[in-house]
Each structure stands twice: as C-alpha cells, then as structure tokens.
C-alpha cells in the first residue's frame, strides 16, 4: 500500500513549521522520514500529521496512544487531500493503521529473524534503536520498545534490546516494564536472571 498526504488547507505555513518542529516528533519513529514544508515524507508514503491529541484517544487505554501526533489525512497516492477526501476520523484507527503500515512489518521481520538468524535480528534491532536514540527521538523509541513482544524473541535478542536502550532508560518509560518481563521470562526458563542482567537494569 502506498499513501500520500497533504496538510489540510486550513493550516498556514507558520502552523506547518510549528507542527513539524523536532519537538513534535512527528515522524512516528520512522527513521527514514523526512520533513518538508507541508508534509512528512517517508519511502513510498507521504503523511500529513498534526500534534493534537484528542480527548477520545487520551481516554482510550490503547498502546497506540503513545504515538505522538494524529493523522489528519491519509489518502491514496495520486489523490490530494481535500475536505471531501475519505478522511479517517477515528484517531485510534489511524494509529492502528500507522502501526500496521510501519511497525508491524518491521516487528514481524524482527521476530522472524530472531528465530532464523538471531545475529541479524540483533543487527536490525541495534540499527533501528541506535538511529532513534542518536536523534534523541525518545518518544518514538519508547513507542517502539513498548510494541516489542519479548515472547517472540530469543533471549539473545531481548537482552540486546536492554543493552541498546540502557543509556536512555530515564527517557523510556516502557523500559522498566520490559525489564521486569524479561527477568520473569528468564526465571521461568530456569536461567540465572541476576547474572545475565547484571548492569542492564
């Protein structure tokens, strides 16, 4: 699937700049994303976002809530945004849609590699998280960390996840729960969690 999105016409250039500042972290954790004056561009996708968070989504206890920004328009490539375009008005479904488009394939790839070739899974993991952390995209990093299901990873890989995120642990609220999950999983497997996790918690 390919999408393009243009900003709604009611936003002027100054608004675009404000919306697309580094502070708003609108790339949703997509390291390849680039930002120009009126849209976010990622390979094969152009997405228009704003940084308003609706009360509905705040109340929704959903993991997708962590995404910063709300998709304002997401329309097939070749069409342009207008008030008549098929706009996804349900914020949550937008979040899910974004997740499915961008993160799910990456995570599925990570899980597959973990089983088939775990050094490559670690390589994939490191490059993604290192890219986010180097750009100080802590919200995106935490979103992604939150999405990782350690039950789909070999121990070698989820230990690498703790290693690459350690330095930023104070900026990653999801990490402490992940540490607990990993500690419990190692204990259930009969491993010495204290020895394995030394320095990583």
């Amino acid at each position, binding site marked *: 699937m390919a999408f393009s999105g243009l900003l709604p016409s009611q936003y002027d250039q100054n608004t675009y700049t404000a919306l697309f500042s580094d502070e708003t972290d609108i790339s949703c954790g997509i390291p390849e994303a680039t930002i120009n004056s009126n849209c976010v561009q990622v390979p094969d996708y152009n997405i228009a976002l704003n940084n308003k968070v609706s009360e509905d989504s705040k109340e929704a206890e959903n993991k997708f809530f962590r995404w910063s920004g709300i998709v304002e328009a997401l329309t097939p490539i070749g069409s342009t945004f207008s008030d008549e375009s098929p706009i996804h008005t349900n914020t949550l479904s937008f979040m899910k849609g974004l997740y499915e488009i961008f993160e799910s394939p990456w995570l599925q790839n990570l899980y597959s590699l973990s089983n088939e070739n*775990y*050094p490559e899974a*670690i*390589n994939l*993991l*490191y*490059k993604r998280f*290192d890219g986010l*952390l*180097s750009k*100080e995209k802590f919200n995106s990093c935490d979103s992604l960390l939150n999405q990782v299901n350690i039950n789909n990873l070999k*121990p*070698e*890989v989820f*230990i*690498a996840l703790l*290693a*690459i995120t*350690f*330095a*930023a642990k*104070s*900026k990653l609220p999801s990490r402490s729960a992940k540490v607990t999950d990993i500690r419990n999983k190692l204990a259930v497997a009969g*491993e*010495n969690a204290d*020895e*394995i996790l*030394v*320095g*990583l918690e």
Partner: protein
Amino acid sequence: MLAKTRMRFSLDLNSSTPLSVYTIVDTLPIEPFIGVGIKRINSHQNHAGIVYREDGGEAQFLDLRWHHQLHQGIAKNGYAFVLLNIHQLRIPAIVGYCRLLWEENENGCIPYGFKLPNECFDSTTAKWLLGNSGLGLTCATFILAVLHAQRITIAKLDDWPERDADNVWRQSIISALRDNNAQKQANYLESENSGVRFRPEEVAGSAASTIYPANFQTAISLGGKILNIFDDMP
C-alpha cells in the same frame, strides 16, 4: 609453529576455575565468544583488540590501531587471546555492538587519545562523543569503552594509579601524531598533561580475571602472566 600442546595455556589464577589463553585462532571455541587479544609489538609496546565470534562465523578481530584507524578482520595468529568471563547469553549483544561500531565507523572516525573509557558516550543516547571533539581512545581504552557501552565493566577504573612512565609514553604518542600530520589532535592531547593510562596487558589481564571489575593488582598480575606467553612463542 607451536606444538599442539602449546596452543592453549592454562594459567594458575589461584582459583577453582582456571582460565585459558589461546595462541592459535583455530583452537578458539566454536560457539560465540568475546574476548581480548594482545600481541607484543616490542619490549616497550603491546597492542590489544577485541576478538569475537558470531554464531557460525569466523573469529573476528576489532581493534583501534592508531588515530582514525579502526580495523576489523578475521582474527590471526600472533596474539594471545583471553575470553571474557560472562554469561553466554550476554555475548551476542556485545558481538552485535562490535559489528555496529565497525559498520558505523569503518571510515576511521575514532581518534586516538587519552580519554577514559566511560567518558566516550553520551550518558543518555549512548552516542559516541569522539567525533571532531579531540577526544580519543587508545587500543586498550577502546576495548574498555565498547564493553562499558554494553554495561560490562571488567576493570575497576578508579583503582588505576597515575604513573610517571605513562607521561613518557604519552609524549611519544603526541610526537608520533605530529609526525603523521595529526597536529590538531596532538595539540589537544598536549593540553591533557596528565591522566591514568590503561595498558593493553592490563586490559587483557582484567579480561582474564574471574571477578569483574578486576582491580589494578589483579590486572597487572594476570597481564604479566599473559605477556610471559610471548617468551615461549617463536
């Protein structure tokens, strides 16, 4: 060529778990490992790097050879190798980090210098701070820095003393940098007129310790025993 029986040396560490020093690459374990390799350059200088094996791969050697000269290749004979005493499940993460470092720095952007290994990363992002800042590492502190980034502390850093002989060595490095057209780096290092030096044999000795972080005396003692192996090598 060393005889088979001399390919692997057992050191008496006064421990119930004797450690081994490997001198032939082919005798290194088949399963993934991470360790330190050291070789004698001359009577005054040794060189060390990280030796590791990924699952199913050949043993690799990653070392900072000189200013902006990070190198990785297949591990070769001529070194004494000691393996880290860590849980097997921690090894792939460190090995993966070595690979990432190499891929991101193979153009040689890691400078040579005298910084402590725990001063080389941003405390939040873990980003290398070396860049063009004038900071830098030696072959020995590069090893400690990589392990530090992976939360493995093999040497008790604050236990190392400043030694007069290290200032002589430091001046020789600065002169060599000037001779190699690295004036800016030499000037920077000259402004750091003191500091602790972690010698390659001390890092190898720390790696050989059964308890981490190794203190200075343990590192000196084990490092000396490892270097003695070179007396028996052809």
